[in-house]
């Protein structure tokens, strides 16, 4: 009797905690919809900011475009080294000291505050290499920021592939790369892609690294590598911080949140697909 009472109490605690988190999330979304929803229309999405001060009128199209360019570039720059590192860690570096060191480095990279990554790229790319405040510099800063996410998620997806496949393939005398391309990578693909999407979401929301490397208050965000771009989180910061337009700030926040939710839902569905593949 006492036992079941304790169990019920515990269950109640879990439920309340879960509901509380859900409530926080829902109130954020709800509040943004309430404050920003009425200002979202096709003009807001499809036009450039205008008015005086800039941003009181018009929309956020260049910021949406800029954010998409930034995360695309970050992904392109980080997936190849990220995936190669993950393949090394899971397929080739099972023994010795080097993989231990690489794992440690990747973990440490994940702990570097993003503003520091931003300042590093500012010093290296913007100043020393003379790129100026640019899409390229911002993409690089975000790429460095998401690199550990890509390595860790890809490595774990690869390690989750049944080791028996490697054993069987090995004892047929085939090369590791043949096994990798025919069995291991296809098997881990959904999990690897899910990791890329999570990294995209992470990059889309980051403000600090692009503030000092890429973002401008107004830019066309044409995709030119050496031009500055607008970006959703930075635009939001300016609108809010300079008290330009709270209405547009909330609307921008809602668009950014929508983009992130979309990316994360996609990532989660890929993850659950991968889990179904693994349990097969």
């Amino acid at each position, binding site marked *: 009797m006492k036992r079941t009472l304790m169990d019920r109490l515990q269950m109640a605690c879990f439920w309340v905690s879960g509901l509380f988190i859900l409530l926080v999330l829902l109130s954020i979304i709800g509040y943004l919809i309430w404050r920003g929803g009425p200002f979202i229309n096709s003009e807001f999405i499809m036009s450039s900011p205008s008015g005086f001060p800039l941003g009181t009128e018009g929309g956020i199209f260049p910021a949406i475009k800029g954010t998409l360019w930034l995360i695309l570039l970050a992904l392109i720059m980080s997936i190849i080294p990220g995936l190669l590192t993950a393949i090394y860690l899971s397929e080739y570096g099972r023994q010795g000291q080097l993989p231990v060191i690489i794992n440690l480095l990747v973990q440490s990279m994940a702990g570097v505050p993003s503003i520091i990554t931003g300042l590093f790229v500012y010093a290296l790319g913007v100043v020393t290499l003379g790129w100026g405040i640019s899409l390229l510099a911002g993409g690089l800063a975000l790429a460095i920021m998401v690199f550990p996410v890509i390595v860790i998620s890809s490595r774990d997806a690869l390690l989750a592939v049944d080791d028996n496949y490697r*054993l069987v393939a090995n004892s047929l005398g085939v090369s590791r790369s043949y096994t990798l391309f025919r069995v291991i990578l296809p098997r881990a693909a959904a999990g690897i892609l899910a990791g890329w999407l999570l990294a995209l979401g992470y990059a889309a929301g980051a403000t600090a690294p692009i503030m000092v490397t890429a973002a401008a208050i107004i830019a066309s965000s044409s995709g030119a590598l050496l031009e500055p771009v607008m970006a959703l989180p930075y635009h939001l910061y300016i609108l809010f911080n300079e008290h330009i337009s709270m209405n547009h700030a909330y609307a921008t926040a809602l668009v950014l949140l929508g983009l992130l939710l979309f990316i994360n839902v996609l990532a989660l569905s890929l993850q659950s697909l991968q889990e179904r593949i693994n349990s097969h």
Partner: protein
Amino acid sequence: MNAIEFIDFNTFYGSKPVLQNINLGFDSNSITAIIGPSGCGKTTLLRSINRTAEMERGYKSQGEIQVFGESIMEVKSLSYLRRQVGMVYQTPVALPLSIRENVLFGPRYYGVKNRSELDTITEYCLRQVALWDEVKDRLKRPASQLSGGQKQRLAIARALAVEPRVLLLDEPCSSLDPASTALIEELLTRLAKDLCIIIVTHNLFQARRISNETAFILDGRLIEKAPTAILFSSPQSSETQGFVSGLFG
């Protein structure tokens, strides 16, 4: 010449000796069973032959193993060695590919491209393991849909597809039902006409049913190897006597 010859062979995990001073030959065209209690080194012995034991952390070996007269440490490549020495494991493993691509996994790597040749290999190997009639209409379906016994026969077919001269089996029937076990024993007996087959088994009845010779290993040492009927009926050593009569296991 023996197909496989162990000469003063020792292995270690770290500093702990596993196999000690093994001198042992295996005939071509015959089945040799390796028996012994759990942890005696049977699997290490088997995996030393195709050098997959080296994948384990801390594994070291001393002495020599020859496969058809060639030392396994001096072969031109691991690929060459493992092509000659096929291996089937305890857990039936179907690669996450179609039934057909499981069989062709090795041959495609070794450069067979011609479609009719690939078809021939598929059918020949699946017939060898008595699986062809069960799967010929669903060769393109995922191999994961097969039953455990079918997967194990597929694993044998996949090993045969690269034309090995030796087939190593590590307790291939321990997770299978009696009917599947009987099928596999029957096909091994057939395959032994062309191959050197070495099977590690926990099942003494299985060793008696299918093997021509049996080797008994205890605590990393070869205690006795003899024609199966003799080893079971009149073993030389008292330890063998104790093991085959079930005094210890």
